[in-house]
């Protein structure tokens, strides 16, 4: 076991090649998993006793929410690595995460609103979880806005890294808001072991979690390539890669 494979992740040309090779595979498996999960969730799973078929929104709402949080956390970790150890690939990774995370936060809020209307009678409530998820969206926008507003690319990388790290405190607030406060949003649902959900409802959900995760990996790797190209001004490896 050597540290060589770990150091490869700091090398832009190696990462670029890795991203080019693996993105299609992640994408392909993600697509299959999504179809399987959707079939399981929309067709195979039975209606819920209370919510009837409305609960099926969970099969896109929960994975979107998971992505919105996981992507922000990934972005913050990548930003911290880039800031502390001055690794360009890490900064590129953080930049690549942001737009994807923002879009899935929008998806989470949107599907949540569409689920809330029939279930709670309202599209929106200023409860802790919804409010902090909205704050997450503002944080994503602030991050991308700060990047865009700073001319020097290295300064932009570093300043937005500080912002990403400061904002990460919001992620546990979102996650635990339903346990800490009396929230309109339902508390966490146990999926395995002493599950709150029936087995044939659970496996499509877990499949969708996996599918969305793989999908993120695919799209992230494509964006990462673009960010690496933008950061490599004089490098010779670019010449080979483009021709």
């Amino acid at each position: 076991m050597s540290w060589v494979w770990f150091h490869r992740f700091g090398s832009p040309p190696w990462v670029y090649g890795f991203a080019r090779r693996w993105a299609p595979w992640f994408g392909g498996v993600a697509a299959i998993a999504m179809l399987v999960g959707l079939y399981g969730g929309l067709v195979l799973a039975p209606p819920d006793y209370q919510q009837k078929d409305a609960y099926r929104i969970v099969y896109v709402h929960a994975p979107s929410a998971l992505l919105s949080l996981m992507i922000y956390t990934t972005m913050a970790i990548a930003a911290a690595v880039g800031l502390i150890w001055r690794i360009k690939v890490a900064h590129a990774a953080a930049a690549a995460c942001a737009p994807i995370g923002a879009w899935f936060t929008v998806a989470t809020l949107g599907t949540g609103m569409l689920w809330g209307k029939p279930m709670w009678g309202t599209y929106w409530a200023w409860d802790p979880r919804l409010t902090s998820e909205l704050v997450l969206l503002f944080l994503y926008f602030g991050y991308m806005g700060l990047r865009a507003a700073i001319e020097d690319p290295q300064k932009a990388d570093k300043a937005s890294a500080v912002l990403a790290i400061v904002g990460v405190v919001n992620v546990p607030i979102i996650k635990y808001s339903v346990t800490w406060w009396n929230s309109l949003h339902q508390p966490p649902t146990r999926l395995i072991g002493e599950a709150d959900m029936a087995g044939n409802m659970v496996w499509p959900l877990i499949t969708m979690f996996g599918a969305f995760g793989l999908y993120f990996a695919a799209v992230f790797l494509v964006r990462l390539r673009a960010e690496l190209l933008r950061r490599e001004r004089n490098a010779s490896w670019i010449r080979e890669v483009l021709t």
Partner: protein
Amino acid sequence: MSEFFAMSGYARYLWPSFGLVLGVIVLNVVLAWTSLERAQVQARRRLEMRS
């Protein structure tokens, strides 16, 4: 079959939700691709300017 699409009356919340997420999924793929293409074009231009 129409029962499936009706989703016990919740169709107008359920299908737009899935549509929204599908839209976000497709959009992100397209945006990522165009971002990569633009970066490649710019990188090529920088290479040409240098040589």
